[in-house]
């Protein structure tokens, strides 16, 4: 039975059998889990791990070079800090933090309402929130551009119907932030819905029965128990917003330069791979540290597997 389902257990006694059992890594490789994981693992190695390692290697190569077989140097990082290229990095962190904070405050009551108040139509609501992700983000930002541009929907309506003249609302840092909040809102909302759905109702009832106020239940039961979902949402929003490319360009009109734009310039127009790589390393560090810290704290089986 164990053999048939493929759970090969190696015990010293088995090696004495007529047909020699595979041992060590071979036995490990033969497990159905390993076999089924292999194609995805290969994709992750060749499409994610290796490219990022290459970027890290290039970050330590002399400027303007196109090979990783040269003596390593810190010149690119010195250049970044000497010529204030780190500004785009700081701008990205600042905008990502602001985006995360705004999304968190907006999404908590909405997610709460979706799970606890309108739970019966939760499926429909979740679909309505997911559907926009199936429309290109730059296209949706163009929609906002037409809405906010001078003479567009908002200023045109104010002018025609109320006689209020307004200036263009585009091409500012706030317009960029607005675009970031818009684009990454679903990435906060969705995990939050999952997190709030994980809070057992009995726990809340018990707290109320023991005389807790609404505020206490929120602070002591709701938020702590929904924390895994809130954390995943906050982390995703922060990392994705920090690496945004279309928002500062389409809505921000490059009034603020974010790091992905700088990396793109170095990799394409400037053809300076090492400098682009060094800038990417800053992004990889932020995303990596945050992701690893988070993934160590949460139990994925618990989040995706609860039924």
């Amino acid at each position, binding site marked *: 039975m164990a053999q048939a389902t493929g759970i090969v257990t190696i015990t010293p006694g088995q090696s004495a059998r007529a047909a020699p059992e595979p041992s060590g890594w071979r036995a490990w490789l033969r497990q159905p889990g390993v*076999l089924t994981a292999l194609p*995805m693992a290969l994709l992750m190695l060749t499409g994610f791990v290796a490219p990022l390692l290459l970027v890290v290697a290039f970050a330590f190569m002399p400027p303007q070079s196109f090979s990783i077989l040269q003596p390593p140097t810190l010149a690119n990082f010195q250049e970044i800090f000497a010529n204030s290229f780190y500004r785009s990095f700081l701008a990205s962190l600042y905008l990502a933090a602001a985006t995360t904070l705004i999304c968190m405050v907006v999404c908590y009551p909405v997610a*709460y309402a979706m799970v606890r108040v*309108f739970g019966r139509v939760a499926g429909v609501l979740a679909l309505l929130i997911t559907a926009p992700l199936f429309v290109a983000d730059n296209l*949706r930002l163009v929609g906002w551009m037409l809405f906010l541009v001078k*003479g567009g929907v908002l200023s045109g309506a104010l002018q025609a119907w109320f006689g209020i003249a307004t200036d263009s609302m585009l091409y500012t840092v706030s317009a960029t932030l607005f675009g970031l909040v818009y684009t990454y809102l679903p990435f906060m909302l969705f995990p939050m819905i999952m997190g709030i759905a994980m809070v057992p109702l009995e726990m809340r009832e018990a707290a109320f029965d023991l005389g807790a106020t609404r505020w206490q239940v929120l602070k002591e039961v709701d938020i702590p128990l929904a924390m895994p979902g809130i954390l995943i949402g906050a982390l995703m929003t922060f990392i994705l917003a920090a690496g945004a490319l279309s928002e500062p360009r389409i809505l921000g009109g490059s009034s603020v330069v974010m*790091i992905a734009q700088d990396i793109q310039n170095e990799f394409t127009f400037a053809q300076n791979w090492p400098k682009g*790589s060094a800038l990417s390393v800053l992004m990889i560090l932020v995303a990596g540290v945050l992701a690893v810290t988070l993934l160590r704290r949460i139990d994925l089986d618990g989040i995706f597997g609860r039924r």
Partner: protein
Amino acid sequence: MNEIRRPARWLYGTLIALVLLFVYLPMMTLVMASFSRSKFFKFPIPQFATNWYADVFASLSIRSFFWTSLVIALLVATIATVLAFFGALAFARYRWAGRKLYQKILLLPILFPQAVLGLALLLWFSAIGVTPSWQAAVFAHLVWIAPITTLVIAIQVYAFDPAMEEAAVDLGATRWQTLKEVTLPILTPGIVSGFLSAFLLSWANFPLSMFSTGADQTIPEWISAKIQSGYTPQVPAVGTLTMLAAVIVMALGGFAAWLHARRRAGLA
């Protein structure tokens, strides 16, 4: 239990409605702008017309970008679903040494900015001598989409009782028969939603396509290029058509789910 009182219910309902309005406002603006006759967008729209759609349908280049997008999305969805079917079993069903690490590595591409990933892949492709093309874009999309598809199918795998597989094996089924006759049919709803979401995510992808397609171009790339070279109402018209395509795919998915639920109810 703390019953949600009427006024609070209204308040929460309004809040959800406002968020949905916020989410859909730019898309409604696009649809409206696509029917405006003039070259420059102005609100309130002086005259409605469908001339920009006629332009779009007549354009051979837009038609070719459409096909490129479609072929990439179909290939990505198919490959991602096959990879994710096995990947999800490894994620949620089997217990093996290394599973926790595998689960975490799988989440990393989702927790990474796509534009930076796209640029890293651009560097990687030139280092290993792959010329950027629509085929390279399929690979780039897979790196980000296959993990998502895996999660979608994994949720279904978690809900599935391994005793079903064991029963099949006890009744003499081979490993392959068990997979084909038991595992696959039970996971079908997850596989279908995984396929559809992979298709739609690839269809709508811009940051990964931008750095991997090279001389080929997808519809979202065309939109970006048009925005930089100067607005034309073809943009909202093409945008409306891509949204319509996404809605049709989602409706087909909904219909499939409804059929499946009905057949199950019929069997029970």
